[in-house]
C-alpha cells in the first residue's frame, strides 16, 4: 500500500520530576501548547488528537482523559483518543498518528503523552505499575516491574557473563548525561562506586538500576512531509516506524534475555526506512532498568547478542562514544512518567536532529532512533527519524 511520507513539525515537553502542585491535565496542556507553538499551528487546525497515558484512572482517578486534555488545549469536535500500552503508551499513540497521516486520513495530528505518578506512595505506584504485567500469574505471586527486570538481568548474567559493573556503567553514563539536561528529574552525576553500592530493590537491581517515578508530559505534532515546510523551517522526517507485540507474562517467553517484539519492530522499521543498524548515529532507548538498555542495544543490532553489557562498559554509548545512547539522560535520569516516555524520546531525538541539544548535542545527528518498550516486552515501538 502506498503511504505518504510523514514529518514531525513540532515538539513540546514539560520538565520531568515530582510536581506536587501540578495535575495531569496542566502537564499535558503545557506540553501540547509548547508543541503547537513550536509548529506554528493553532488548536483549531488539529484534526485528530491521540493521548498516550498508562494509568490516569489509577493514579489520579480520572477517566476519559483524551477529550479532557484536548478541550483544555482548545481542540474540540475532532477524534480524541487515549491509547494505553503500558510504558509504550505514547509510542503507540505516535504510531496511530503516523499511520493515520500516512494513510491520508488527516494532515495535522497532535500526539500528547502524560503521566502523573507522584501523588501516590511508592508501594502503591509499584502496585499500579505491576498491572502492566500478568495479574493472574507473575503479579499474583509478588512480582513488581523491578522484579521482572531483575529476573531478566539474572538470566542475562547467567547466559552471557554480564556483570554488575556493566549494569552500573549504564547508570553512570545516563546520570552524567541527565545532569546536563535542564528538563531531567534527577540532575546528579553518580560514580561507579555509588552505583554498585545502591540500596537493593530486587536483586541484582538496586535503586541506581531503576528509572524514576516522575510526573511529566511530552507532545509531538505530525503532518504530511509535503506540507511540513508550510509550518516549520526544520521538519524531521519519520523514515520508519513500527509497533509490535508479544505475550505479557515473562514466564511465557522462550528466552527472556531478548525482547522478541523489539527485534521485530526494529526489523520492520529498518526495512521501512531503508537503513540498517549501522546507519543509526544515535538513539534514545527505553532504559526503564539498566538491563533494558543493554538488551535494547542487542535487539536493535548495535551490539552482538549477549554483548550489550560489554558494549556499554567500553563506553561506546557515551555522549562522545561511537553511537551515543540516551544523551538526554534516559528514563534513568531524565525520569519515566510512563505515558510521556515515548513522545519524550521523540522530542529528544528531534532536538538532536535539529542541532538544538546544547551541551548534550551529539556530533553526528542526521539519523536517530527511538525505542519504546511496554511492560516486560509485550509492546514495542521503534521509530527512525532523519532531517528532512
Amino acid at each position, binding site marked *: 500500500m502506498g503511504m505518504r511520507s510523514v514529518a514531525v513539525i513540532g515538539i513540546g515537553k514539560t520538565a520531568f520530576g515530582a510536581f506536587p502542585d501540578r495535575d495531569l491535565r496542566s502537564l499535558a496542556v503545557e506540553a501540547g501548547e509548547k508543541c503547537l507553538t513550536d509548529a506554528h499551528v493553532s488548536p483549531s487546525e488539529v484534526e485528530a488528537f491521540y493521548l498516550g497515558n498508562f494509568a490516569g484512572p489509577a493514579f489520579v482517578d480520572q477517566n476519559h482523559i483524551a477529550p479532557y486534555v484536548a478541550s483544555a488545549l482548545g481542540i474540540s469536535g475532532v477524534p480524541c483518543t487515549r491509547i494505553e500500552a503500558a510504558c509504550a503508551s505514547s509510542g503507540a499513540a505516535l504510531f496511530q498518528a503516523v499511520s493515520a497521516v500516512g494513510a491520508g486520513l488527516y494532515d495535522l495530528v497532535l500526539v500528547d503523552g502524560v503521566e502523573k505518578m507522584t501523588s501516590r506512595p511508592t508501594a502503591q505506584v509499584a502496585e499500579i505499575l505491576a498491572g502492566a504485567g500478568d495479574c493472574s500469574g507473575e503479579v499474583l*505471586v509478588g*512480582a513488581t516491574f523491578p*522484579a521482572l527486570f531483575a529476573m531478566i538481568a539474572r538470566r542475562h548474567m547467567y547466559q552471557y557473563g554480564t556483570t554488575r559493573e556493566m549494569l552500573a556503567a549504564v547508570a553512570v553514563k545516563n546520570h552524567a548525561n541527565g545532569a546536563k539536561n535542564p528538563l531531567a528529574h534527577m540532575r546528579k552525576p553518580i560514580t561507579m562506586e555509588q552505583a554498585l553500592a545502591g540500596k*537493593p*530493590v530486587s536483586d541484582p537491581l538496586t535503586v541506581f538500576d531503576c528509572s524514576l517515578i516522575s510526573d511529566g508530559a511530552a507532545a509531538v505534532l505530525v503532518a504530511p512531509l509535503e506540507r511540513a515546510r508550510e509550518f516549520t523551517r526544520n521538519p524531521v522526517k519519520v523514515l520508519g516506524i513500527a509497533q509490535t507485540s508479544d505475550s505479557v507474562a515473562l*514466564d511465557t517467553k522462550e528466552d*527472556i534475555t531478548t525482547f522478541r517484539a523489539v527485534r521485530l519492530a526494529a526489523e520492520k522499521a529498518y526495512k521501512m526506512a531503508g537503513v540498517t543498524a549501522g546507519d543509526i548515529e544515535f538513539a534514545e532507548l527505553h532504559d526503564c532498568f539498566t538491563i533494558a538498555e543493554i538488551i535494547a542495544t542487542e535487539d536493535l543490532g548495535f551490539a552482538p547478542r549477549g554483548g550489550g553489557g560489554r558494549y556499554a562498559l567500553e563506553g561506546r554509548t557515551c555522549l562522545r562514544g561511537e553511537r551515543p545512547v540516551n544523551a538526554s539522560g534516559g528514563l534513568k535520569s531524565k525520569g519515566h512518567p510512563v505515558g510521556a516516555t515515548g513522545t519524550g524520546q521523540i522530542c529528544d531525538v528531534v532536538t538532536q536532529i535539529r542541532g538544538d541539544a546544547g551541551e548534550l548535542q551529539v556530533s553526528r545527528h542526521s539519523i536517530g532512533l527511538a525505542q519504546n518498550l511496554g511492560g516486560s516486552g509485550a509492546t514495542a515501538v521503534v521509530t527512525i527519524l532523519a532531517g528532512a
Partner: protein
Amino acid sequence: MSAIVYTETVVHMAPERFVSEAPYQIAIVTLDEGGRRTVRIAGQRVQIGDAVEFVEERNGIPFYRKRD
C-alpha cells in the same frame, strides 16, 4: 511436581499488598512436564539451575522449595 529454576530474584521493595512479607524470593521455574511458571520460593534461597519441588498453594500463590 518438580522443576528447575530458570531465573530468580529477591524482592526487597514489594508492592503494597506484600510489603509485610518482604524480602521474599520469586522465581520462574521450568516444570518437568514442560512449560514455565512464576512461583514463590519457601525456605532456603535458590539459584538458577537448582532443582525445586512444589510445597503448597497459599492464597493462589504456588510455593516451591529447594530439593535436597
